[in-house]
């Protein structure tokens, strides 16, 4: 059975290789190859899962050693895999949601001439992501870690001819690189501390290391997690990453890749457990991000960016939970999985809306779409209910547990964290209701509204490619969109995900199934909140209702203006990502530009100048000296004569002395 693990990665990797090297002759079948191989990987995952269920919970982990990768002195890196319950959860999520999104993309990218390549990149992503969660040491995890970064880079910048997409892709890669530095330093620290960086030995040896070292390692891991999971302060790339095609946003920037940071923290649980300071920092990062994302999500008019803010916020919950230690790990992962379902569903729904609206993303130009695209409306609505934590749906179970665990942290910290989480839940309900109302309810603001005109340079070009019918092209030309439901190949994945959003949470929670499943890997401790669990649940529901109500007052009762009003100070700040990008731009980009420019100048004038100056000095000196060599024999004779005189004088002087 162990030998199948490599197959999980091999299938999509093969797909990527074939699709990217295959050339145009595979254009016709490329998307099917990609989808089939993704599905094959899912099937293998299911087989392995079934096998795992049949085993004793304590002995479910499987290992596969392929070959020795980098053996140098005491530095031994192997290509070896480890499949335990935690990895298994991820494998199923990645391959399952991944396969669904492959199917969805067949429809979404139908008219894109580079669809084969798109599927190649998607397969590459799946392979890298699976490598990330299957690696049995941190260095191999690092390979997957950067691999998903690469795939993300390629997919965000898939429409490369748009400068904004190319810039967003670059930004994502760079910000992630900063996080990656954290991971690489963490690995180095592990190597110098433990002499190894394989999961097993490192996590077993945590007791022997000093707390200072462990805190350092944990903080570096947290830095890496911040980069990959878009946590403050490295969150700025996620909003821009929405330049990528929507299936990419759903798969990579909502369901899987961005949650890798949570995986890393939970995987390194033993290290974090031994470093309480680092845990505290983790919870703070999570809390700050969940507020940050939520506030940003409230102000964005771009549907994808609003959802991106929401993603950030939800991952903030997970990181917060992960920072709580054994009382939170399981719930972090559980929220991760349910979030994977409903957020992917929401993004696919958003994609479907855009698909029907000539790739318009501004929600102010939506409205009343529920009658035109009923399936999208229902699936999106179910996802919406799940994310706001409507009782009985997925989000309710997972989020409620996190809030409970936050309170259970105890002391002032517990109250603050719990309060923030609760407030976050209210804001979540507010902004999601806002999205829902602006998109599917209210008046049809797209009437007589030329949406994203094709002349506009940075319009998603998919408008030209996947209008599905010729009439759409005509509509694009006249400007007014004709909302319509998407084809089945797109709606079926949405339906499947909606089902997941509804039932996954309940399924996991009944009988604490998920806790028992993960407990052998992550340890679980039951937290005891200072207030009863029932009270927490009640307040969660209450704030959710308040959030929904406020949103209805704001956007349901009153008509939504087509042009965004100026808004309050907070709104304006939130629209600009709380000025975080401006800060980056002024301090890092501008500063960097000045630095490099002045360095180029320094290199040219100072470093090179010393050399060139020496050369010029020599040249000048020889030029002067050359003038003495005027070519007249007589003047040479003078120097000879003078030289002779000097020689005689010297001789006489020497004799005199």
């Amino acid at each position, binding site marked *: 059975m162990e030998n199948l693990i490599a197959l999980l990665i091999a299938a999509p990797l093969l797909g990527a290789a074939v699709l990217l090297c295959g050339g145009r002759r595979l254009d016709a079948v490329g998307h099917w190859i990609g989808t089939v191989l993704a599905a094959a990987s899912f099937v293998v995952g299911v087989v392995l899962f079934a096998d795992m269920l049949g085993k004793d919970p304590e002995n479910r982990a499987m290992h596969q050693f392929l070959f020795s990768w980098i053996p140098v002195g005491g530095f031994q890196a192997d290509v070896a895999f480890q499949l335990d319950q935690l990895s298994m959860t991820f494998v199923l999520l990645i391959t399952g949601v991944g396969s669904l999104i492959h199917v969805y993309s067949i429809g979404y990218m139908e008219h894109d001439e580079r669809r084969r390549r798109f599927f190649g990149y998607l397969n590459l992503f799946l392979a890298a992501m699976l490598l990330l969660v299957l690696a049995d040491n941190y260095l191999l995890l690092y390979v997957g870690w950067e691999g998903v970064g690469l795939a993300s880079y390629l997919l965000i910048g898939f429409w490369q001819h748009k400068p904004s997409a190319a810039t967003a892709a670059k930004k994502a890669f760079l910000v992630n690189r900063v996080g990656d530095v954290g991971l690489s330093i963490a690995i180095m620290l592990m190597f110098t501390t433990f002499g190894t960086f394989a999961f097993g030995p490192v996590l077993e040896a945590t007791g022997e290391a000093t707390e200072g070292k462990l805190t350092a390692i944990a903080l570096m891991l947290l830095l890496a997690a911040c980069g990959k999971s878009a946590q403050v302060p490295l969150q700025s790339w996620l909003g821009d990453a929405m330049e990528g095609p929507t299936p990419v946003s759903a798969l990579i920037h909502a369901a899987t890749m961005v949650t890798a940071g949570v995986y890393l923290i939970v995987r390194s649980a033993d290290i974090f457990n031994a470093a309480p300071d680092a845990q505290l920092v983790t919870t703070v990062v999570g809390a700050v991000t969940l507020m940050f994302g939520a506030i940003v999500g409230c102000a964005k008019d771009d549907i994808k960016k609003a959802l991106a803010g929401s993603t950030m916020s939800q991952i903030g919950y997970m990181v917060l939970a992960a920072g709580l230690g054994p009382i939170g790990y399981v719930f972090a992962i559980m929220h991760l999985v349910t979030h994977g379902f409903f957020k992917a569903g929401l993004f696919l729904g958003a994609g479907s809306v855009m698909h029907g609206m000539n790739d318009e993303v501004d929600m102010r130009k939506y409205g009343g779409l529920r009658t035109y695209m009923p399936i999208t409306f229902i699936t999106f609505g179910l996802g919406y209910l799940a994310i706001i934590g409507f009782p009985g749906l997925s989000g309710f179970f997972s989020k409620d547990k996190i809030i409970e665990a936050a309170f259970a942290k105890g002391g002032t910290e517990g109250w603050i964290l719990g309060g923030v989480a609760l407030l976050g839940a209210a804001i979540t309900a507010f902004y999601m209701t806002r999205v829902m109302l602006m998109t599917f309810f209210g008046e049809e603001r797209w009437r007589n509204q030329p949406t994203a005109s094709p002349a506009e340079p940075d319009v998603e070009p998919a408008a030209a490619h996947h209008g599905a019918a010729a009439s759409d092209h005509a509509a694009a030309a006249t400007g007014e969109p004709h909302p319509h439901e998407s084809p089945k190949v797109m709606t079926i994945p949405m339906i499947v995900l909606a089902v997941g959003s509804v039932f996954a949470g309940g399924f996991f929670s009944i009988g604490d199934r998920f806790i028992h499943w993960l407990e052998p890997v992550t340890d679980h401790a039951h937290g005891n909140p200072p207030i009863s669990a029932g009270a927490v649940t009640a307040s969660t529901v209450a704030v959710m209702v308040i959030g929904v109500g406020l949103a209805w007052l704001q956007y349901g009762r009153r008509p939504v203006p087509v042009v965004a009003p100026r808004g309050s100070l907070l709104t304006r700040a939130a629209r600009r990502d709380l000025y975080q990008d401006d800060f980056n731009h002024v301090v890092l980009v501008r500063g960097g530009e000045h630095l490099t420019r002045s360095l180029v100048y320094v290199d040219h004038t100072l470093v090179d100048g010393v050399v060139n100056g020496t050369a010029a000095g020599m040249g000048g000196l020889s030029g002067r000296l*050359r003038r003495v*060599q*005027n*070519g*007249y*024999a007589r003047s040479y*004779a003078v120097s000879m*004569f003078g030289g002779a005189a000097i020689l005689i004088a010297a001789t006489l002087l020497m004799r005199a002395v």
Partner: protein
Amino acid sequence: MNPVNYLYLAALLFTIGATGVLIRRNAIVVFMCVELMLNACNLALVAFSRMHGNLDGQIIAFFTMVVAAAEVVVGLAIIVSLFRSRHSASVDDASLMKL
């Protein structure tokens, strides 16, 4: 009178000749000045001969004369051919060494 005076005279003549070489541009005059320097040397040699009481100084002076004769022959030939090609006997005109 001390015969050393001959040496002083020779030194004076030699210096005048040398200065002439440096100052004059006409190759022929320059050449004459060279001859003057040689003659000054000869005078010194003859005086030395007298000083030491042997004839070696005179022998050297004799050789100097012979060599000077050879030098004059070649030198004048050079001047003539230079004049033919450049229509000038100025040493400054033969400045091909100049860059």
